[in-house]
């Protein structure tokens, strides 16, 4: 296989973790909506927590993206 095409395939494979990140972010916000629907008075406490969890989960996806960029452009 040519090195260039192998690089492209590897860069595509390297962003596969985005699957899990998508599930995780969806999970966070689904749970946030559910808990606010059950008890609207906790919204002020829960929202920063949800944003924190979102940022932590998103960082995982960004690491995968960075690896993909490194394979493509290094």
């Amino acid at each position, binding site marked *: 296989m040519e090195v260039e095409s192998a690089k492209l395939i590897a860069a595509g494979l390297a962003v596969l973790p985005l699957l899990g990140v998508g599930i995780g972010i969806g999970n966070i916000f689904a749970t946030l909506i559910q808990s606010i629907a059950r008890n609207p008075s906790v919204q002020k406490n829960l929202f920063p927590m949800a944003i*924190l969890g979102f*940022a932590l989960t998103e960082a995982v996806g*960004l690491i995968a993206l960075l690896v993909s*960029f490194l394979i493509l452009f290094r």
Partner: protein
Amino acid sequence: MTNPMLQFFQKPLCQFGVMGWDLTLTNGVLFMFVSLFGVVAFCSILYRAQMQPSRWQMLVEKSFFLVAGMIGPVNDQLTKQVLPFTLSIFLIVVFGNVVGLVPGAFTFTSQLIVTMFMAIVVFLVSIVLGIKKRGLKFFKQFVPHGVSAWLYPLIIPVEILSFFTRPLSLGLRLFVNMVAGHSILAVFASFIAGISVISVCVGLLNAVLFVLEVSIAVLQGYVFSVLSSLYLQEAVKGH
């Protein structure tokens, strides 16, 4: 397509050294000074504080109480001791990220050495503060409550390992967020070629991504200071 990683290389602006010390002014150092002056100017608004606050004064007070609320009650003794440290970390990270988003500017938080240095400083401060406040009880945090004794050989190494990977994840997160965000902007900008419908659409998409990047820049500063104050709090007060 031009290489989107090229924007993260430091270029020397003027080279000089003192007594064998290399004090070259690179663009990273320049923008570090710019954001440092930004932080000082931002905080010195409080010298002209009024009873009826201006918008900028409200922003300073908001960020003060935001960072203070991460550690605990505002008039707590630990908060008073630790707040200058976490507030300056929060402000320098936020200013570095936001200044780096100005077109043509350099993001110094996209350098691994900068973010790892900040994370390691937070780590060392938490260890020193914890040992100073609690003495040998500090090491009790490696032994979780309610675990039967025959699990200790398994649990304690895991706890120690997770304790020492904290600065790694803290520094790496900020670095990766900044590098990936700026690379995405550069990659999408390189899709714009000539004047066509697709170029206009990609340009608009890039503008939306830019707004997202601004919010991520502030959010990452928030996350960095939340986690560092969490570590400090945990070291001083235990689980």
